[in-house]
């Protein structure tokens, strides 16, 4: 028998901490920033830093950027790109004994690729599930059997999966599917669905290239849709089909792939670990992704061009949407903290 009593889960990294930890109401997790976090061209983090009243800045050698605490006790962090980065620095943040994150809401808010079947540039999608897209077998598609749709298959499988039961293959990994608190996702969507998002002329010209896909041509809008997370920044019509199939296989038939990102399965891996000792509450996690680019080319164009073509307007509509939609939810949490601290909206 192993006995283990974890009276208070806050054992953390060795940091000088002579005062009580700061009670954080929400953590805003961004993934990408250009240059510094202030005073230059703004990425995901900088919009939050420059538009919030910052009370304190903390050194954070376990991540790529310092941590920013707003006057409302909202903590702003930027993980840097990719699953390893996100996992390592969110784990470090969760163990940091300068902060008490046990009651905090987590808002992951960043830009992503968007499926043009569902979304347009600048649009925002709240997820109810995060699915990993790296943990798979892969064979280069030029040497797969003729009857395979693509070269990605579940770990341990002998061929690409067609039915949900095909994904249970002997490799038992619980870091592929992360169910979010869908009640909270619905609440966030409800609080933000009528916000107006904007995009400029270059964006509207680009979205009109998707002549056969009506959702891709719409002005930016807010919806609910699932996110696929992989360090591999895939692109193209064939892998877009794989992404749609993969999300349904792992998430369930009703789940629709809408955004593709490079960090969230890592962030969720860390948050679920941290929750084991009540350092965080996984029922308080929200994932918002906004569309900086499409996940496949417009009809008649090559993936080799569109995969690395500059984002229309430098991705600004998506960066703005992430802040506009995300900050609305943060305001709601901060202004209703007395209630929301211990009462999660739409509690399951």
């Amino acid at each position, binding site marked *: 028998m*192993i006995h*283990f*009593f*974890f*009276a*208070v889960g806050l*054992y*953390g*990294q*060795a940091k*000088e*901490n*002579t005062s009580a930890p700061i009670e954080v109401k929400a953590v805003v997790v961004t993934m990408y920033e250009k240059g510094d976090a202030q005073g230059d061209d703004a990425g995901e983090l900088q919009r939050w830093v420059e538009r919030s009243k910052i009370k304190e800045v903390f050194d954070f050698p*376990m991540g790529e950027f310092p941590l920013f605490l707003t006057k409302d006790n909202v903590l702003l962090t930027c993980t*840097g*790109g*990719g*699953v*390893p980065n996100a*996992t*390592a*620095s969110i*784990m*470090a943040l969760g*163990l940091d*004994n300068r902060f008490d994150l046990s009651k905090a809401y987590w808002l992951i808010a960043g830009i992503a690729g968007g499926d043009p079947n569902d979304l347009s540039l600048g649009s925002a999608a709240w997820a109810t599930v995060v699915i990993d897209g*790296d*943990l798979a*077998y*892969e*064979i*280069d*598609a*030029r*040497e*797969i059997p003729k009857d395979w749709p693509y*070269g990605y298959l579940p*770990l341990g499988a*002998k*061929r690409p999966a067609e039915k949900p039961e095909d994904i249970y293959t002997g490799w038992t*990994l619980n*870091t592929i599917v992360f169910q979010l608190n869908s009640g909270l996702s619905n609440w966030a969507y409800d609080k933000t669905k009528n916000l107006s998002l904007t995009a400029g002329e270059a964006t509207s010209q680009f979205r009109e290239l998707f002549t056969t896909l009506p959702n891709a041509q719409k002005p930016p809008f807010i919806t609910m849709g699932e996110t696929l997370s*992989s*360090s*591999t*920044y*895939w*692109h*193209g019509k*064939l*892998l877009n089909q794989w992404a749609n199939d993969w999300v349904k296989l792992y998430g369930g038939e009703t789940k629709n792939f809408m955004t593709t990102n490079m960090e969230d399965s890592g962030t969720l*891996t*860390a948050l679920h*670990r*941290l929750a084991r*000792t009540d350092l965080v509450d996984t029922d308080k996690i929200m994932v918002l992704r906004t569309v900086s680019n499409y996940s496949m080319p417009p009809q008649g164009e090559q*993936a*080799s061009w569109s*995969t*690395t073509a500059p984002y229309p307007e430098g991705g600004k509509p998506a960066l703005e949407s992430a802040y506009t939609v995300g900050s609305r939810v943060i305001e709601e949490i901060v202004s209703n903290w007395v209630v929301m601290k211990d009462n999660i909206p739409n509690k399951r």
Partner: protein
Amino acid sequence: MYKNVNKILIQCLFLIKVTVLASQTYNDSTFEVLPVKVVVVTMFELGEDMGDRPGEFQNWVSRFPLNDTILFPLGYRNLRYNKDKQVLGVVTGIGTARAAATIMALGSDPRFDFSKAYWVVAGISGVDPLDASVGSAIWAEWIVDGDLAHEIDARETPKEWETGYIPLRKSQPFELPRQKDNEGVVYHLNGELVDWAYSLTKDLALEDNDVLAKFRGLYSGFPNAQRPPKVLKGAQLAAMTYWHGALMNDWANKWVDYWSNGQANFMTSAMEETGTLQSLTFLSNAGEVDFDRVLVLRTASNYTMQYEGITAAESLSGEKLAAGGYTAFIPSLEAAYVVGSKVVNELINNWDVYKDKY
């Protein structure tokens, strides 16, 4: 040394209660900070720590041995420790995300002092038949991530492209110049330490048997794949995507060559190290661990591509292999222990020498 002061403070503030099995017991309100000379990092274990079908951890637990269990709720699996040898064993879980989470949790854990610790990653892997045979053991000085890339399904790429993988922020495969900030794609370990570990182990005899001989015999046209197992030095490609086949093997070689500026040759394919090394980098930046003391050993349980006459899909599924599946599974576990423990024993038996050496 405010670190230790802080640890005492943490004890007073938070009353962590830890009870461990067998010989090591921590009382209710305090714990002794355990010194660690070496951390053995493995990636997976099947079933129990001992006494059943082994994974990477089991040889270390039962033979090294690592008798004491230390609870590790933030990890993937409980830790094991040998208090006389001051060696700690950890299992990260499969994939770079789990590895990054586990190693960050461990490196931040105030119950241990890692300031002088060496980190020896010892696990099994795929091996490039151009370079080595199953059952071989390979020390890596260079580790390159294989997930962090753009990718287009290869059937949808321009005809002249050799692969659908493109470096991030580039527009074609292997496009130069490389990004100065590789964003966590490349890790270069302490070459002096890696060479020392290789020299110490290069003449060790590794297990060989008829099954291995039969398996490697299938790889006609690949002379290095047909040699008996031996200890080598070569680069690792780390990716959560477990790729297989001749075309991706070609990509792996060129990808490692590209990211190492021609200084490294791809030999092993595994799923965790760039996660482990990302966390160790952050921990080293914060002064918690010493990144110059990291070693990475992988031993070959299978080849990364098919032999002539079968398809990549048949090879991956193991259906047409000599004895089905990973015929080198058990020998590769043995090689990881034999080679890895040689280095760990040298470090702890001559700690006066190595305490401040690297």
